[in-house]
């Protein structure tokens, strides 16, 4: 043992104090909400059924103010530090915003190096997500006991060898990211008009080798998904269940052939019926995307501006859209690589045609995108132009305004900067995937609560089912994600029509559910 023992200073034991600190609070006040908790406030009608449910989470604040007065060219480095989960996506969106700001087009090799780097990142992120993050719900299974629905449960099911294979693939992909990006964690690759480092013939060989392995690995993963999930009719039934279904619009970045592209292209929106609603250049995003504010949440809810805010409704009357793997597949007409295209066709054939409105299908869509990312990585690694040493176009124009968009693993990410003529930021805007998805997530939580709370009966299972409703989106709620212990406590309060709290469920840092 070390000198450090558990001391009197420790107050790790959670208690119910949190729910008794405000015993008479009957209104929802986001200012006094408990930091660090996800909170669900459920309001019942006279019959004891759900009339409204609100979901609140800690949210990152102050980006606009923080960015003002800083040199725009610092943004690829700074913004990559605001999120501990996908720094690479912020780095790339910021780099593309700088291209636009300085009105400079990167040389072909630089563009390809960026996309190669980004495809490597997407391959790694999607692989880890599928096995270790989404796996507890799908590989272990939604009905499994809560104690097994974790990463160890995933390993128990797929085997240690597969677990090691995932870790090994991750290591190789991260080594490649460090090779061109300087650092895998916080890359220093992107510069306005190009990249900081060229790819040599030796680098190219390494990329070719790992990319081929990544394609094999992605195919293996797809086969694993099919054998574990698709052959289990209970899972398929759950994916298709009404509780996890919302008929909304879908948004994603597409190439000129309306095929998914993570790095560049036009933004395409399809309607709940699957028809193209809009297709626009990233710099036109403010004509199509607006944000709605609700008094009970810090999160701004993105919606389709031309349709106007119509509330949290889906179907033909909706103005809500969503992003992330399922949305990208719905917004596309095809995948750009052959193996992913086969998988894409099977996906829609199995789930009843386009668009697929089942939130939990995001997990399958992610595996198809993993295959695409690996195939695209291989295409770019094999491209002779990738080793062209001309990787930078020096900016000469005066900066004014720049918008950069990429598809982050969790959905469309928009960076928007305005600067003075010295390139100092005067105004900045950031729309992250979770904002694009926020309205649909709110609907998912309410729908799950409606389905699980009737006549005032609140079962403890409601927390797990409500969680599943938003786990599939992998929402980013505030970026202080490394704050211990990694898992966010969850609080659910049920109010009578008068506002009085009739039941409280709290799942705490120690995993126990407390009922008061």
């Amino acid at each position, binding site marked *: 043992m070390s000198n450090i023992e558990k001391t009197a200073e420790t107050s790790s034991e959670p208690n119910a104090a949190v729910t008794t600190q405000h015993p008479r609070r009957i209104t929802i006040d986001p200012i006094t909400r408990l930091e660090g908790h996800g909170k669900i406030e459920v309001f019942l009608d006279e019959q004891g059924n759900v009339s409204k449910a609100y979901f609140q989470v800690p949210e990152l604040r102050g980006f606009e103010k923080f960015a003002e007065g800083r040199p725009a060219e610092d943004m690829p480095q700074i913004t990559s530090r605001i999120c501990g989960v996908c720094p690479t996506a912020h780095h790339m969106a910021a780099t593309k915003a700088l291209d636009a700001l300085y009105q400079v087009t990167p040389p072909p090799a630089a563009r390809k190096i960026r996309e190669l780097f980004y495809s490597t990142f997407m391959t790694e992120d999607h692989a880890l997500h599928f096995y270790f993050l989404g796996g507890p719900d799908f590989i272990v299974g939604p009905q499994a006991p809560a104690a097994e629905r974790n990463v160890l449960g995933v390993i128990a099911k797929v085997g240690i060898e597969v*677990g090691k294979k995932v870790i090994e693939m991750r290591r190789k992909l991260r080594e490649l990211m460090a090779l061109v990006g300087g650092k895998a964690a916080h890359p220093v690759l992107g510069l306005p008009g190009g990249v900081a480092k060229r790819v040599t013939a030796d680098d190219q060989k390494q990329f070719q080798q790992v990319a081929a392995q990544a394609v094999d690995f992605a195919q293996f993963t797809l086969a694993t998904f099919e054998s574990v999930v698709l052959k289990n009719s209970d899972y398929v039934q759950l994916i298709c269940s009404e509780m996890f279904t919302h008929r909304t619009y879908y948004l994603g970045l597409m190439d000129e052939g309306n095929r998914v592209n993570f790095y560049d292209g036009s933004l395409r929106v399809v309607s709940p019926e699957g028809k193209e609603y809009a297709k626009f250049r990233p710099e036109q995003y403010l004509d199509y995307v607006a944000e709605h504010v609700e008094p009970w949440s810090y999160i701004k809810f993105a919606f389709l501006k031309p349709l106007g805010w119509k509330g949290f409704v889906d179907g033909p009357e909706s103005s809500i859209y969503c992003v992330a793997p399922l949305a990208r597949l719905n917004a596309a007409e095809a995948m750009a690589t052959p193996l992913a295209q086969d998988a894409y066709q099977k996906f829609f054939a199995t789930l009843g045609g386009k668009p697929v409105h089942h939130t939990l299908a995001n997990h399958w869509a992610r595996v198809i995108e993993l295959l695409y990312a690996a195939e695209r990585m291989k295409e770019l690694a094999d491209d002779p132009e990738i080793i062209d040493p001309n990787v930078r176009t020096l900016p000469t124009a005066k900066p004014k305004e720049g918008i950069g968009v990429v598809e982050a693993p969790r959905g469309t990410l928009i960076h928007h900067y305005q600067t003075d003529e010295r390139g100092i930021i005067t105004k900045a805007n950031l729309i992250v995937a979770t904002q694009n998805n926020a309205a649909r997530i709110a609907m998912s939580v309410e729908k799950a609560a409606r389905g699980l709370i009737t006549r005032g009966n609140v079962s403890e299972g409601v927390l797990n089912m409500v969680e599943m409703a938003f786990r599939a989106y992998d929402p980013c709620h505030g*970026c202080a994600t490394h704050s211990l212990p*990694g898992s966010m406590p969850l609080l659910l309060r049920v109010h009578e029509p008068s506002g009085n709290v009739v039941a409280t469920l709290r799942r705490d*840092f120690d995993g126990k559910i407390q009922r008061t």
Partner: protein
Amino acid sequence: MEKSSGHNEPVMAARVRVLCLGNELLADDAFGHVVADRLVSELSRNAGEESPAATAPADIEVIKSSLAGLGLLDELTGVSRLIVVDSVQTGNAPPGTLHILLEDELRTPAGPSPHYFGIFESLGLVRRLGLPAPEEVIILAVETADCTTLGGNMHPAVLAAIPKVVQRVAEVAASLPRKAAS
């Protein structure tokens, strides 16, 4: 991520790693990184004062990271003792309160979002896969007031906890057996 060695030993696997988690951009979440900076200067000073001839202080490596969960896999392996310095929001203690825990004292539920896949899940994975996991993990976490305001200031009580944590880590370092000079 930045690595700093506390002394000028030849490169070898550290026996103690102080993993300082946090984000300098997010108010109180800067805590871990500020502790790391203090520790590095403290350890360098101590190393300078000691005679290197007979014994050397235990190998201590200080690492700063602002990554989360699975992003930390590499930082959790290849060391015998791991000290994690981080922020925490239990909501049950005033800001600045220091929580000191061993790994098995904190059980975590499956997070509501994969974004909340934490260090313990990562450690569990490392052990299950037979990767070189630390024998002991100690967590020093300070209760924070605000970890979500970009560019926000640190709470005075959180700032005041910094020397306490630096001292604790120094005590652990001092308690380690000295290895013979080669």
